[in-house]
């Protein structure tokens, strides 16, 4: 038996909590009366609205675009009327510019037809990706068309699709791989064509055997031009982090402060591949996505296909309301997601899950002083020294934390997870990143 792929250093094994939703099929959530579309959903410059107040628009219509700088356009998820262009509650930033859309329930749903893409050239495909408003919807929100145009000095030879989904609770990608296997594989092939390369690996953690099976079938390994390979990964957090995934699959190490393209690799989430398929083959822009709603704090956990801009309160209403004992609402996974304080927050392109965690699911103990057990050193997949960063930040000496590797930290939270003193190490790192001087 072949030993499973993984990265060698660090990592943790948090409980998975996936049973709640992993058996539930993707459920299409009815469109609520009102959507709140945040203009800056991606990394880069936020969109400028291209529509006016009280304007009537159709489903998939362009409502915002980026004229200057890095970014992708924003589309209307449904037909409706622009109610307002103002500010909305934002999950991370407290508030952000947004467009409020009142749904027009009379309008007929748009039907998308499959179009041949094999004859198009890479540039055209790339334009379609851009026009579809595709960003890395695994969580980072980096505009995909930029990622698919790697710098000339570092040629890319491998594409990796990330189906690891190592965060506890989340099963959205798992379900997507089961239900959209063919689309994902086709999306991968589109990306391969854009990049002009032949090799694609889809990494999936061992705890999703059905997804591995489905994807392997879709990849048609027996066909002569099989370029997409399914790789089974060991269950370990943070397996889904770019650098760790690349090391697990290719054995290459992405240098500190560098992008995967430095070692000739492009990484995309499986959900992004599906979105690329939609944008290129169906010419359907990215305006809806699969999210996992789980936790003991919600009436009915589910994998939902929701429109971008759906507010949390609508989801809560749809899924049976909040449950007693709810203590924390987390956007994203429990390891790297962020807690929100309001149900007014809308779903964005990068939302992969909304977790309603009760008291017994999270740790609410106050933190104590560092006892230098060094467990965080063992847990850190990057080989950093979280304890030193924490101690320095606590002493008000954030400026000198660079030697301990603050800027290499991608905030996976492994250190804080294992810390017996329950120290908020990730928060310390974030503080340090603000104060310390970045090397060049």
């Amino acid at each position, binding site marked *: 038996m072949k030993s499973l792929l993984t990265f060698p250093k660090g990592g943790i094994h948090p409980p998975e909590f996936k049973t709640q939703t992993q058996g539930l099929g993707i459920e299409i959530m009815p469109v609520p009366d009102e959507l709140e579309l945040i203009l800056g959903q991606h990394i880069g410059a936020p969109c400028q609205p291209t529509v006016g107040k009280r304007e009537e628009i159709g489903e998939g219509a362009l409502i915002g675009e980026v004229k200057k700088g890095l970014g992708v356009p924003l589309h209307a998820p449904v037909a409706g009327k622009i109610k307002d262009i103002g500010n909305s509650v934002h999950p991370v930033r407290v508030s952000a510019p947004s467009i409020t859309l009142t749904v027009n329930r009379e309008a007929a749903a748009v039907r998308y037809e499959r179009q041949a893409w094999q004859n198009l050239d890479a540039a055209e495909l790339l334009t379609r990706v851009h026009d579809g408003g595709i960003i890395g919807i695994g969580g980072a929100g980096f505009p995909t068309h930029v990622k698919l145009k790697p710098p000339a000095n570092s040629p890319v030879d491998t594409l990796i699709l990330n189906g690891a989904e190592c965060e506890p609770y989340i099963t959205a990608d798992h379900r997507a791989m089961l239900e959209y296997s063919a689309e994902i594989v086709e999306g991968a092939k589109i990306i391969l064509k854009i990049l002009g390369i032949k090799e694609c690996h889809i990494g999936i953690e061992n705890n999703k055997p059905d997804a591995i099976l489905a994807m392997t079938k879709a990849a048609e390994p027996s066909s002569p031009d099989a370029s997409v390979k399914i790789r089974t990964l060991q269950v370990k957090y943070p397996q889904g982090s770019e650098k760790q995934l690349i090391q697990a699959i290719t054995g290459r190490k992405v240098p500190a402060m560098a992008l995967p393209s430095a070692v000739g690799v492009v990484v995309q989430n499986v959900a992004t591949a599906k979105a690329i398929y939609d944008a290129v083959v169906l010419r359907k822009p990215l305006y809806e996505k699969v999210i996992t709603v789980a936790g003991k704090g919600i009436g009915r956990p589910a994998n939902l296909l929701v429109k971008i801009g759906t507010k949390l309160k609508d989801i809560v209403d749809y899924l049976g309301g909040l449950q007693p004992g709810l203590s924390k609402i987390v956007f994203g996974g429990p390891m790297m997601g962020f807690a929100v304080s309001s149900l007014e927050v809308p779903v964005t392109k990068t939302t992969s899950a909304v977790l309603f965690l009760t008291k017994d699911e999270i740790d609410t103990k106050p933190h104590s002083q560092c006892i230098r057990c060094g467990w965080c050193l063992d847990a850190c997949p990057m080989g950093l020294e979280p304890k030193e960063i924490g*101690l*320095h930040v606590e002493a008000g*000496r954030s400026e000198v934390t660079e030697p301990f590797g603050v800027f290499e930290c991608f905030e996976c939270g492994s250190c804080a997870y294992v810390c017996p003193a329950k120290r908020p190490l990730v928060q310390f790192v974030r503080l340090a990143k603000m104060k310390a001087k970045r090397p060049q």
Partner: protein
Amino acid sequence: MMMLVKIRYIVLAALFFVVAPLAAQAEGLIVDQTFSGKKEITVKLSGAVDRKVAENVGNYTVFEEADPDIILALGSATLGHDSKSVTLQFKAPLNTAKTHVVTAQGLAGIDKTTFKVSKSYLGYLFGIFISALLINNFVFTKYLGLCVFFGTSKKKSTAKGMGVVFTVVMVVSALMSWFFFNFILTPFNLNFLQIVVFIGLVSLTVQAVDTVLRKVNPILFNSFGVYLVLVIANCVIIAVPLILANNNYNIFETFMLALGAGGGFLLALYLMSSVSERLQLAKIPPTFKGLPIAFIVAGQFAMAFLGFSGLQLF
């Protein structure tokens, strides 16, 4: 990098002083002679000898060098299996701190072979070094040089620079002081001028190191020059000549003492600096901030160094 070169020279110099007396050992019938136990002397010979002669107790006389009239009572003499080593067993425990003189008659046909048995001189020298470095560490057990110790032990780099400069100045000034003490002060009965002469020599050394460094290696000077000023007004450096004058050390012993003292100072500074880097992160009660806490930490170090007390290496 420069410091590495310097350290290498120091090590080479130390090696020279250690090896030189070794090479001076005479060759002959007796290859090696040591105290092998509390009541035992073992002699290794270059060739096989007659068992009958070698095992006759009457053929040996052994006494302490200072007491030639007191012959020590021998219990037995045993020749090893290869006939090349003799073990002398005594009736009473020997005072291994003293040099013993052994005279053997008729061994290997030689009428009379006389040799001295003492604890290895190298070991003794090394003992002085270790003593000054650890057992009687100048900072933690002799409480010297505290001002500089507390002043410059905040950063590791400073501590290292300071320690190295100290060691160099200490060795040079100690050797010079030894020379002055033995060839000028003692013969002319001017011992009461000790203090003036020693402090003058220290200042001179500092000035010389300053000038030489400035010319020869400006880079090194830039990194270490600042510490030179601090060296003069420091008791640790003047203490070394005073101690050697007190104990009548010879030049090798002086060198070892100075090297050990300097090394010990470097060690103490380095330890303290690494600790105080950590201390700066701690929440110290406000009244203890700064020197008081440094003193308490130094006290804890001194307690740990009590572990070395009574250590006798050779």
